[in-house]
């Protein structure tokens, strides 16, 4: 299981669950790459056991909610236009 966190920019109740949605996740795996961010297409759920990986929500000013969600990362999305990579 990989642990990620994410920042909900609005209220957690407004977050779209179980549908493919694009968010920014941060990888919390220990080591030099900890906190690497990525835009990703995901499915997420407030049910901590629904998907394989763990997602820890934060609010927009960094507040840690301490309630685990779960996430399925479908694919990373590279936002940088091809010419400038």
């Amino acid at each position: 299981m990989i642990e990620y966190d994410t920042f909900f920019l609005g209220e957690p109740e407004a977050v779209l669950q179980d549908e493919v949605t694009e968010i920014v996740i941060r990888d919390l795996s220990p080591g030099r790459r900890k906190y690497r961010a990525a835009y990703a297409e995901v499915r997420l759920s407030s049910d901590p056991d629904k998907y394989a990986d763990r997602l820890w929500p934060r609010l927009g000013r960094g507040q840690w909610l301490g309630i685990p969600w779960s996430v399925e990362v479908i694919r990373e999305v590279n936002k940088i236009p091809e010419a400038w990579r």
Partner: protein
Amino acid sequence: MANKYYKDNREFIKGLDEAGLLVTVEQEVDWDMEMGAIVRRVCEMKGPSPYFKSIKEYEGFEALGAPLATYPKLALALGLPPDASIPEIGRVYTERTNGAPIQPVVVERDAAPCKQNIITGDDVDLFDLPAPMVHDGDGGRYLATWHMVVSREPDSGDVNWGMYRQMVFDEKTMTGPVLPFSDMGKMFYNKYVPRNQPMPFATVIGMDPLSGIAACAPSPIPEDQFTGMMMGEPVELVKCETNDLLVPASAEIIIEGEVLPGINMLEAPFGEYTGYRTSPREPRAVYRVHAITYRDRPIVAVSNMGIPTDEGQLLRSFSLGLEMEKLLRSQGIPITGVYMLPESTHHLVVVGTKPAYSGIASQIAQLVFGSKLGPWFHQVIVVDQTVDIYNVNEVIHAFSTRCDPARDIHIYRESAGTPLNPYASPADRKVGRGSKVLFDCLFPLDWSRADTPILVSFNTVYPQDIQDRVLAQWTNYGFSE
């Protein structure tokens, strides 16, 4: 003739050590919040700079925390004794930066320590640098907290060095706010973005202290020349590997790349200089990295924004106040001095004046709010020459006794502000709008002399001979000095 100054970060570290302003931390510290927490505590205690010799997972890297967050460290950077008074530090800064600009010199690559290690292309990986997680809850690891970003105006060729925070997003990408009224913001949004042209940048980490002071000063003189003026001789620069920008040759780390037009990616939140995490996580400028060069055993600089006092609060207050003083004097306004309080997170400025005519306080406020510096602060207190502007007790006394709430508080609505202002409404923050206020603490000139209250203090209500006698006899009365 050259002034006394420190040519690079390492000489400055030695200077801090010799002055008793450094603590060398030999034991390993974690880049993930531990280093940040130490620096934060140091800032709150106005303590010595921690020099971290060993960073977890980053063998071969070192870090310097809170390099310039106190007046003694600032005095030292300017070649003065650490106990120099604030007005003395200000006087030296103003004197040195009022002369003719000094052009930089370009040195060969072989003579530039920052070229000891060069990484380009696919090998570039920002996670190879020990970017700290400065505060718990920040949007990412901030590599650039005490640094400078070099860029160039594409038409005039004017160079800008400025501090614009940068968060590590992924291996080759950093994101950060470039406020539209800053020098780099004007260049990027007015020139590069309309042409859909990436803007070359170079982030300099671990530069000599005077270059850092220049980069966060709001002076109209290009910062490379401004640094030379403070040094009293040219600053030495070297050309980047992947663009034509010039960077200080002896800096610890250089990150080269391009700021991309037409695309924004998420940055923040971040513990900011106001002492809060205010500006939201939102799409901000994207820095794409093409090369990293660094000295052997590079020393990363770590500033920690939060409640006073951090580098931004101290140095921005210092330089904003002194640039304001230059502006007011250049307009012939009879001021006695300007002091911006670092504790106000450079939001409050005290201006001393000889009240020569009615309305002078409004004139002062309108000038400084209307200047380039305006967006960064919103409170002006104008006092007369009897008040020591550096003495908070005297300023509070004048404010509490001379400022009539109905007559002397002037509010300027819908002015330019920043998204970082904690007191602004979420809507105002979004567009960088804010109100300003003048506290006029001058007794009106149209009051008769007989009606004007007299300040009752040792210095003002006794004849000079009595003051002299009391001072001369002070210890004889039984008091200590």
